[in-house]
Each structure stands twice: as C-alpha cells, then as structure tokens.
C-alpha cells in the first residue's frame, strides 16, 4: 500500500472488477493444473520458467515464475502440502526443508534458484512401505507437538540438527532447534525426541 496523489477513480460498477469472463475461465484451468498435468504442472500463465527439482528422490519438472518461492512451488504446484507456511518471512521455520542436504527456509528461497537441486520434504521421510522415520516416530512418542503445524519443519530441522553434529547435549539441541518456533510450547518434548533419536543412532 502506498499513498499516492493520483486522481480519484470514478465509482466502479458492480461488474467492472472482472476483466472478462474468459480470464476467469482461463485461470480456473491453470490453477487446477496440479491434478491434471503430471509432467510439468505450472503455476501461472506468464513469465514461466521451467525448472527441475529432485523432490524426495523423484525428478520433477515444473513451471514457475521467477518470484515463486520454493514453498509455493512445493505446495501449490506440486501439491506437496506437508510443508507449511507459518510466516512467509523466514521468521518461524515451519517451511523448513532440506535443500541439497541443508536445512533452509523454503519461504525465502526462490524456486528458480533451486533449479537442479535435491529437496527433501516431510513427505519423503517415511520409507516406501510407510514405516516412519525414527525422528517421526520419536516426535509421536514424545508428544513433541500439539497442533502439529510446525511439526514437518521441526522434524526436518531435527534430522539436520543431528546430522550437523549439533545434538551433543540438551543445551546444544535447544540452541540449534531455535530456528523452529512452536507456539504450543512443545519444546522440551522436541528436545527429548531429538535426544532419543541421537541415542538410538549411537546405540
């Protein structure tokens, strides 16, 4: 919103907001493309760039705008809605995914910059037969969430936390899990879950 000194626009008619009925129709086709086009789903009609991502081991080609963020590409184009948006500003960690093995905020990552990259989301953690990843199991058993909304991001961050070697003790886990906000306040249980997986791996 900017304040401007442009002349006031005459009152709009009740119908003038619609560009044309054609525009709506076209939009419906496109926005629904997720379910229809498996090969190269696209986000919008203009300024498309085709990128390829390896998502959870599967190579995907998709059309995005330069401004499309990775999280919107995952959710709105590929339909992988397990990754959540909690702030869209890099302030909460709900959108955490592993990008080429590193945990990052997918809301601050432009999808075009991830062209050719390997992405792991929460949908890629359980094995193909549905057995949960140990971190998923540990989160469930330790009640490491309540509402569950931050959980996909927490789990990916927790896996990275151990992989990075930052799960030495509870204090280190707390510090290196502080990029993932949990408004329900499940933090002590999250730490317990990370410790359980760390100890399980050592054992």
């Amino acid at each position, binding site marked *: 919103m900017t304040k401007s000194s442009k002349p006031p626009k005459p009152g709009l008619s009740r119908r003038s907001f619609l560009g044309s009925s054609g525009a709506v129709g076209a939009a419906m086709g496109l926005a629904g493309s997720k379910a229809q086009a498996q090969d190269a789903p696209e986000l919008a009609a203009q300024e498309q760039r085709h990128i390829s991502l390896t998502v959870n081991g599967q190579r995907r080609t998709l059309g995005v*705008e330069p401004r499309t963020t990775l999280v919107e590409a995952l959710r709105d184009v590929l339909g992988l809605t397990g990754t959540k948006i909690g702030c869209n*500003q890099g302030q909460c*960690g709900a959108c955490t995914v592993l990008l080429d093995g590193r*945990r990052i905020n997918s809301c*601050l*990552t432009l999808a075009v910059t991830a062209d050719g990259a390997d992405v792991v989301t929460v949908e890629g953690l359980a094995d193909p037969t549905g057995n949960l990843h140990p971190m998923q199991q540990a989160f469930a058993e330790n009640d490491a969430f309540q509402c569950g909304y931050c959980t996909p991001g927490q789990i990916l961050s927790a896996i990275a936390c151990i992989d990075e070697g*930052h799960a030495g003790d509870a204090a280190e886990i707390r510090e290196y899990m502080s*990029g*993932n906000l949990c408004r329900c306040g499940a933090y002590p249980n999250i730490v317990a879950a990370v410790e359980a997986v760390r100890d399980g791996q050592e054992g």
Partner: protein
Amino acid sequence: MRNFDYHRPTDIAAAIEAARADGAEILAGGTTMVDLMKIGVWEPQALVDITSLSELEGYDVGSDRITFGALARMAEVGDDDALKTAAPVLTESLWKAASPQLRHAARLGGNILQQTRCPYFRDTAYAQCNKRNPGSGCAALDGGETNLHAILGGSDACVAMYPGDFAQALVAFDAEVTTKGPGGARTIPFADLHVLPGDTPHIETILNRGEIVTGITVPVTGALKASHYLKARDRESYAFASASAAVGLDMDGDTVRDARIAIGGVAAVPWRARAAEDSLKGGPLTEETAREAGRIAFADAVPLEGSEYKIKLGADVVAGALMTAHARATGGE
C-alpha cells in the same frame, strides 16, 4: 512481490555486466533480498544470482590471515572448529545470529550488507522513510517508537540501526573486503564499507552499481585469539541484539598490549569504539577498567526516547565481553 528477470551467470564478468544494469540487484543467499522484495520495500527489475560463481565459495584459516569467499555460508563458517580456536569472535558472531536455517542459506557477502530492521523502513504503509523513499522524512523521528534505533551514528534524516553481528567482529579486527566491479577489483577496509546516514540514508555503502563483494580478509592478530562476541537479547536465541560487543585482548603480562572493541545493536553502521580501546592499552584489565572502557564506548551516544537504557546496557555488555576476553587471554578460560 513484483516479478522480475532472473539471471544466473556462471562467470563473474557476466555477473558484473548483468548487475550494472539499472534496476538489477545481486542475489546470493536471498534471506534479506527475498524478504524485502516480498514486503514491497525493494522492487528490483532483475536479480543476478551469483551462487554459480564457485570461485567465491570456501574459506581459509591461515596463520597470518583468514580469508572468506563471499559465498561462504554463515553456518559452515560459524561451526568451524579451527576458526573457533583461532578467532572465537568470528564464529560466535555467526552462530549467535539468526537461525540455523537462515545461516545455511545466507552467505557472508550478503550478511555484511544486511538491512536494518527499522519497522518504519520495513512497512511501506509509512510514507515517511528517507532510506526507502529519499526526502520523505522519518516516521521514527516524527513521534514514532525509537527504543530500537541507533544511538550512535544516526542523523536527523535517519536513525535506523545496523542489526548485524558478524560485521562488528570484522570492524573490530581490521578486516578488508575485496570486490570486483565494472571498474575492476579493489580492496576496501571494512570500516569504510558502510557509510553514515547523514542526509542520504538511502546510500548505505561505498559499493558501486554492479560491484560484487568477492571476499573478506581478516588479519590474524594476538587479540583475535583472545576474542569474544557477547550478544545481549531478551530472547535466548534467534533474536537481534539489544546490545552486543565484539572484543579482543592481547596481554603482555598484566598489561593490555592491544584491545579491540566494536559495539552492535546500537549504531547506524558497524561501530568501532577506538577511544574505549585506547583507554585500555598500556594498563591492566580489571573489572574497573573494563567498565570504564564500556562507558567511554558510549560517551558520544545520543539516546532517543525509550532507548536511554542502551547506554548502560551497552557499556555493561562491553565490560562483560572484555572480562571473558581477558580470561581467554590469560588462560582463565
């Protein structure tokens, strides 16, 4: 976010060429750039993604100098064990910043150019912001909330605070920045990189259009080994500094041979406190001299309404940081 053209050159000459165009901006980790683009504060017409310039990656912890490529990630550097021993202030100022996710994405070259968190700058609903919209005024100084603004280096046009951590370590330890641009390569003392707001707060650095930060060099000194970054914040992690201090001491017995002090969370640009350093040199480091150095560091501070506390807080943080550095210098830690 306004849509834009996206370029990803694979050599630096092409990157400079693309970046010198009007409306083009350089993109590395994107943690600041994408954020500000989303909220409409920055609206570049083109982004030049330099992350394919692999020669800008990596870093080296040498015996007389430490060098960082501009694309080195905050996470990899902040967690480096060798660097932790050689220059604790560098690792501490990195891992205490932001979050693990942001540190994995953010690159050092972008980090030092981090933008202010001034809420009036970040919210385009405020018509007044000289940094965002030159000549429009300053909403903060027009009756706004100023408890988080700069008490050092601000001007009548702008009191936005530089929020970064790593830059305080760099300015304290005489780092240099290397760049390449349309005019060739150059080396810039880190202390000269950022410019005070004065009447032109929209001009933030001496970098020219199309000039790309390629690396950072920190000379190894005695004080670097016994250094410390102390960051005071209301939240234990993932928070900007209310006040911070990057310090280092080189002791000759009980006498301070060299002292380094920079202060964060309080100034318009990365802020070296040279008078405070001088007050310590040639004398002992005691709780009393440390506190005096803290007071001197803030002698010129101009508190704004609500930020009076920063003078005392900042001084205490400097003193506390010096006590830790002293312990490190004398084998006490």
